[in-house]
């Protein structure tokens, strides 16, 4: 049994050995395969995997920066920050979100709708990312929340800061902040690395213009986290950087005063320093409550805003377009003088209407003004006189002057809501309307009707540039000491028109650009405006200031909404008796004081009727307020001058 199988056994051993050899070779190959894989993972791709490992390991929580504040000229905060109490929730820390919601509902005031929204956010976000349940709760709610905190797993009470506007008088110029929308993230590049849940950004006005700088730099906390998202330890904290604060040229007291004055009307008021272009006041009415936007707008309030026919959300001072009406007559006269079309003493007879090109053109004074020269034309705002001047001047030369004085283009920089308006001419009409210019339209343009469209701020700038002797200024709203020496410039030039500027005044690279050919023409216009406000028969004579300190020179205007029918004209229908929507817009521009111009003002009252009746009284009060505060402003200004 044993011996025959002995040879058998040897053969078998050899067979086994042979097959083992094959296996060993296979093992060597597999082993080298594994080593190759190790080389590829641990040597060739180690950087990639190290990055991935760090990505696992570290997680960052962003910290919203504190928004910079906005101050007025006197360093009063007009857009400030306040402490707010918020409720945040980290979903993964809560065992049962639904149960938590039920409990939260009994403690806070949360609607079913809000819960629906929160559920959607939770489903979209990573479970460790905090969501904001409520971003502004009262102190009593906050303390109640803290009391029950032990049974609210995942809930974090947070004390944060949020935008707060002390007053709504400046709501339009300041704008408002609100939650970042998906569209904002798409369109605003600077938000790309900035976005933190719950962060507010500027949506309109200065808040929008300054957003990039005022928003600050985002901070973050870097934690080491485990696979379940639990924070193991804090690795790094970066507080971020609070946004830059800004000082503006606005005067909060004047803002409040003006806002109160026009609160029941759909109106706008602009006040500007005639030398350096500082905007002292820019108010639009009716206003809205900017604080309502900060913590998510109430739907009812929003609806009340957009349904209001007085359009409270529109900043009428820069985004409202109105025909300049008779306020343009100053420029029509100036343009005619500059182009040598008329002489100041050239006269024309106004009989209440004029018939030209087969059309009747009416003067607002049905009985006519009689013999009218330039001064009287402006003083009485005689339409027939200006039809004649415009006819001789032509619309193209008028448009040139109007553009030079700042009409038809945006005045400010970076306000998305600002509109440019229209200064019509023959080319413009061909291009935008596709028709030839009719001569009759020149006459309408001559009294600021027809295609003419301007904002109250543009009219204020126009007036300021007349008041300062005809020099170009660049309006501004952000305070800037360095470019503040224009006053000396212009005053020197006004007093010594023929001398070159002394070199010690040439501290700025600002070019002093005269808008006139002959400064005498500017003075003629200024004088005519004086007569309009301060001499009997002037359109705003009734609202003059006798006190030299406040005496202003102005020009009224009313821009027609609807043409009067012949029947209405015959019946001498008064503006007051028309339906609100059909009444003219009342306009008034002025500068003060007359003897030493400091400020220019423009007032618009939508559907207010005539400028003299509706707009001039407002201007009168605002002028007084502004001039009363002039000395204080001057003092601060000189103090700041020493600092710089």
């Amino acid at each position: 049994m044993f011996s025959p199988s002995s040879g058998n056994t040897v053969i078998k051993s050899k067979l086994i050995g042979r097959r083992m050899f094959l296996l060993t070779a296979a093992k060597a190959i597999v082993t080298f395969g594994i080593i190759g894989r190790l080389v590829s993972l641990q040597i060739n791709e180690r950087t990639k995997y190290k990055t991935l490992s760090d990505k696992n390991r570290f997680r960052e929580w962003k910290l919203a920066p504190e928004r910079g504040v906005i101050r007025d000229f006197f360093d009063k905060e007009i857009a400030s920050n306040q402490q707010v109490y918020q409720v945040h929730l980290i979903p993964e820390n809560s065992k049962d979100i639904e149960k938590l919601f039920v409990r939260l509902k009994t403690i806070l005031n949360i609607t079913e709708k809000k819960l629906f929204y929160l559920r959607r956010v939770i489903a979209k976000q990573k479970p460790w990312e905090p969501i904001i349940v409520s971003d502004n709760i009262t102190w009593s709610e906050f303390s109640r929340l803290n009391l029950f905190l032990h049974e609210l797993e995942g809930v974090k009470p947070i004390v944060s800061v949020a935008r707060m506007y002390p007053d709504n008088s400046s709501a339009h110029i300041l704008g408002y902040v609100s939650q970042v929308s998906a569209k904002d993230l798409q369109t605003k590049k600077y938000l790309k690395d900035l976005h933190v849940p719950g962060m507010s950004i500027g949506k309109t006005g200065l808040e929008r213009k300054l957003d990039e700088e005022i928003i600050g730099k985002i901070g973050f906390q870097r934690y080491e986290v485990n696979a379940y998202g639990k924070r193991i330890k804090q690795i790094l904290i970066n507080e971020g950087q609070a946004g830059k604060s800004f000082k503006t040229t606005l005067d909060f007291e004047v803002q409040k005063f003006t806002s109160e004055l026009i609160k029941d009307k759909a109106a706008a008021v602009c006040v500007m320093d005639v030398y350096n272009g500082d905007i002292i006041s820019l108010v639009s009415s009716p206003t809205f409550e900017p604080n309502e936007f900060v913590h998510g707008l109430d739907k009812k309030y929003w609806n009340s805003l957009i349904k209001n026919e007085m359009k409270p959300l529109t900043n009428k001072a820069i985004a409202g377009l109105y025909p300049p009406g008779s306020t343009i007559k100053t420029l029509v006269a100036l343009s005619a003088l500059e182009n040598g079309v008329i002489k100041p003493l050239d006269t024309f007879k106004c009989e209440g209407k004029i018939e030209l090109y087969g059309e009747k053109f009416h003067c607002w004074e049905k009985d006519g003004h009689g013999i009218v020269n330039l001064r009287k034309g402006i003083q009485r705002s005689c339409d027939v006189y200006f039809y004649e001047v415009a006819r001789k001047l032509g619309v193209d030369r008028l448009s040139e002057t109007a553009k030079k004085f700042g009409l038809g283009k945006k005045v400010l920089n970076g306000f998305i809501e600002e509109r440019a308006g229209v200064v019509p001419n023959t080319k413009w009409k061909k291009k935008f309307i596709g028709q030839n210019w009719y001569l009759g339209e020149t006459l309408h343009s001559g009294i600021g009707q027809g295609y003419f469209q301007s904002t109250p701020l543009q009219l204020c700038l126009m007036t300021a540039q007349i008041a300062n002797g005809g020099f170009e200024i660049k309006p501004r709203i952000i305070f800037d000491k360095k470019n503040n020496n224009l006053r000396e410039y212009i005053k020197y030039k006004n007093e010594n028109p023929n001398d070159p500027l002394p070199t010690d005044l040439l501290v700025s690279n600002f070019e002093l650009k005269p808008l006139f050919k002959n400064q005498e023409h500017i003075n003629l216009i200024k004088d005519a405006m004086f007569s309009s406000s301060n001499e009997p028969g002037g359109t705003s004579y009734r609202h003059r200031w006798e006190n030299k300190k406040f005496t202003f020179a102005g020009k009224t205007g009313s821009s027609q909404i609807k043409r009067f029918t012949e029947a209405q004209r015959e019946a001498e229908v008064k503006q007051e008796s028309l339906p609100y929507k059909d009444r003219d817009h009342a306009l008034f521009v002025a500068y003060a004081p007359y003897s030493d111009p400091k400020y220019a003002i423009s007032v618009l009252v939508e559907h207010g009727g005539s400028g003299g009746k509706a707009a001039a009284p407002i201007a009168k009060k605002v002028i007084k307020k502004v001039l009363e505060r002039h000395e204080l402003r001057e003092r601060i200004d000189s103090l700041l001058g020493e600092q710089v």
Partner: protein
Amino acid sequence: MFRARSIQSSLSIKDKIISIDYILVISIFILGLTSILAMYSTDGGEFKYHTKSHILRFFVFFGMFLTLSFIQIRFWHSQSYLIYILFFVLLLGVKYFGLTSSGSKRWLDLYFMNLQPSELMKVGLILFLAKYYHRTSIENLNRVRYLFLPIVVLIAPVILVATQPDLGTALLIAAGGLTVAWLAGVRVKFFAISGLAFLALLPIAISFLKPYQKSRILTFLNPERDPLGAGYQIIQSKIAIGSGGLFGKGFLQGSQSYLDYLPEKHTDFIFTLFSEEFGFFGSLFILLLYAIIVWRIIKIGNVTRSNFGKLFCYGFGTAFFIYVVVNMMMVLGLLPIVGSPLPILSYGGSSMMAIMLGLGIVMSCKVYKDTPVN
């Protein structure tokens, strides 16, 4: 036959101790110490449950290995069918009295430890087939009727284990058995035929797979398919190994395992943890230890005279190699995650026990290398 008996009986205790393969013993011991180090790291650098229990197991079973080395090779030969039957009964016991954990029934509660008979069966089947083919003459080897018994003893435990369900272990048991049969000289065509039969049955087998097993295979084919679900393990394991770089993140510094990104770090992914902390050179070190162990086992197979010893050593050595590479390829993303421990390094008493049993028999082949078995 008489001469052989005399050689065996003439071995003194000293001879036996001298004849032990010390390179193998030392390699296993170093590997054991390394495993304790790794276990200590999985416990976050503290002597906690896993570390303590692993140390205990290693030393107990290492002692067992040394003791078993001195048991006569003849004993293993004569009792191998019985051992197989004992393990098979234990497997059946699992089916009826087993403990269920995370969806599968694999363990028997023996009060002092939870035994996983499927691990023991890895060695049991090799032992059975080594004896069977030792006894089968070369003429009969490829006769179809001599193939029945091997097929039955292979298929029966594999099906039992696969239905626990534990696909990984079932495949590894089958791999060990097939290796022995092939080494013994069974013709390749039989493997080809059974391979085809297996492929034919595959669709039916797939229908028996649990959803998680199907998902694992699909995930292996495309790990990014579901990065937070089934692919998560493979991705995190690759990140851990890759981020280890050349020299590793340092002992106890493996952030992937420390922060729990690594799944099953005590068991299947222990190599990943080691690789992350000790880098490429650490990985090579482990690979080298395993290579030495396999080399020594094969070498013992070369010197042992009986075909039973050769078949067992070659079979076990190859199976050991397969366990190692399957686990490594798994954590390196070269194979689907099937759940197979790394010999000695992984946490787990049954696996340690089975490996030490196998090594004990191998060492017995060395000590009694010239002793005929029958």
